[in-house]
């Protein structure tokens, strides 16, 4: 396939990044390798979007630290960037909204780049207009850039947790954008997709990527180790380890933050009307 025939992809990873680990970074690398290996895509950017403090997850430290650590961690990457928009919002923002925000930015950037090619510009305008229509889950035509949500299998399976996600948000994420799911256990991911009507409907937009080389580094375990004064060296980039030490982050105290608070999505979505 000629380079110009390849579909451009931007990978967006939403999460706590509390803290960012080598595994988070590796997800991007794995996803890029996988998509480009299909011969259909070219991955042009990776975006790390740390959740805002309004998420109210237990043990979630301040967004400014989490964003700074992510910046340190991506310093040596020429394609993965940190975006602070989501983290700066006063209230928690649904993932679908974050995706809409970044997709709009992507389309605008694309338009600005291609002002010369009027045919392409017209197509992009059409795409953008169709995008604005909330009732359309239009399928992408030609090679407009695509935004895909990058995540682990735990996020995929969290779609099943009651009241955590709005049904229409899931439909939008997998229908309009697409998912790249990194997992060690392909069977479980495929089974989960198979057992969900909405996921099964958009299975062509869900890429399950096997991680053969290494196990997950759970940030929860990393925080536990830090609380106990144990080493996390080589699980996170060195500059991030230094940052954590310098700022005295992650203690028994920080783990208790939001201990009695209900997670924002659950606060928002409980009750019969969830839209």
């Amino acid at each position, binding site marked *: 396939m000629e380079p110009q025939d390849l579909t451009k992809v931007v990978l967006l990873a939403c999460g706590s990044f509390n803290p960012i680990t*080598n*595994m988070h*970074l*590796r997800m991007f*690398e*794995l996803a*890029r*390798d996988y998509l480009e290996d299909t011969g259909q895509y070219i991955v042009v950017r990776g975006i790390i979007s740390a959740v805002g403090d309004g998420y109210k997850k237990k043990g979630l430290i301040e967004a400014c630290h989490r964003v700074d650590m992510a910046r340190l961690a991506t310093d*040596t*990457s020429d394609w993965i960037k940190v975006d602070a928009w989501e983290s700066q919002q006063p209230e928690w923002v649904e993932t679908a909204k974050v995706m809409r925000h970044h997709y709009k930015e992507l389309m605008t950037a694309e338009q600005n780049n291609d002002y010369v090619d009027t045919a392409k510009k017209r197509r992009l305008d059409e795409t953008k207009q169709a995008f604005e229509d909330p009732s359309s889950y239009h399928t992408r035509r030609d090679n407009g850039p695509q935004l895909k949500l990058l995540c682990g299998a735990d996020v995929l399976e969290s779609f099943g947790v009651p009241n955590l996600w709005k049904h229409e948000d899931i439909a939008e994420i997998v229908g309009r954008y697409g998912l790249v799911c990194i997992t060690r256990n392909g069977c479980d991911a495929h089974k989960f997709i198979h057992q969900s009507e909405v996921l099964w409907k958009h299975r062509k937009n869900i890429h399950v990527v096997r991680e*053969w*080389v*290494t*196990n*997950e*580094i*759970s940030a929860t*375990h*990393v925080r*536990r*180790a830090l609380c106990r004064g*144990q*080493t*996390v*060296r*080589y*699980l996170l*980039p*060195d500059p991030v380890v230094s940052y954590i030490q310098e700022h005295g982050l992650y203690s028994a105290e920080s783990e208790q933050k939001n201990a009695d608070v209900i997670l924002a999505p659950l606060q928002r979505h409980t009750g019969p009307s969830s839209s």
Partner: protein
Amino acid sequence: MSARIPLVLLACGSFNPITNQHMRLFELARDHLHQIGQFQVVGGIVSPVSDSYGKQGLVLAKHRIAMARLALQGSDWVAVDDWESQQPDWTETVVTMRYHYGRILKQYQEGTGKDSGPTTNSHHLTSSSPRLKLLCGADFLDTFKVPGLWLDDHVEEVAGHFGLVCVSRGGLEPERAVHESDTLSRHWRNIFLVREWVRNETSATEVRRALRRGLSVKYLLPDSVIKYIHQHNLYTGDSELKNKDVLLRPLTKQTEMPVKTLDD
């Protein structure tokens, strides 16, 4: 409070290539040994095996040494040693241990006032001479069972005289490996098992596979090592075929001429 026993950790292996997981073994072992209170870890040594080992896919020692050196640039207590890799033939682990132990002891005896070598920090709070223990992953314990790979006397010396610090990995059960060996069981007091709860297995075999296929290994090894690998075009389909039909050297050498035990 009694003074802690100074300790140096020695890791022998292919380091083909060195990964973040290898370096993590040292960090985990040090944490554990400090927590149990008996020891003060004063140094760490990475000793890559020589080319004569004959393992399939083993790239030249000079590269494996260079990569380890790059990887350990950021460490202030672990360093690479090329003595083992420089020996004309494959060297038994006990021989490597005896060499390093002799060196460490000599350094200690020459006084703490002098500049310490690259592998030992000053051990100002100690009254006793430093010990040397073998640092390994749990899979290493299973190698004791492989016929012809180890001489019984050597297992005795490694476990009994020196001691082992073994970091468990994934589903492997080091306690079982110890249990299934009479020699290891006898020296259970000298075998320190460290549990790695944050599961981060990065097998060098898989790393080589990824490299062969042009896949990313970023964040599994230090950037400097990845750069070196690409610069020297290591780990290709060809490199993995090296030593394909060659017998592992320990299996041939030890039947020819077994190394003497300490008692001889």
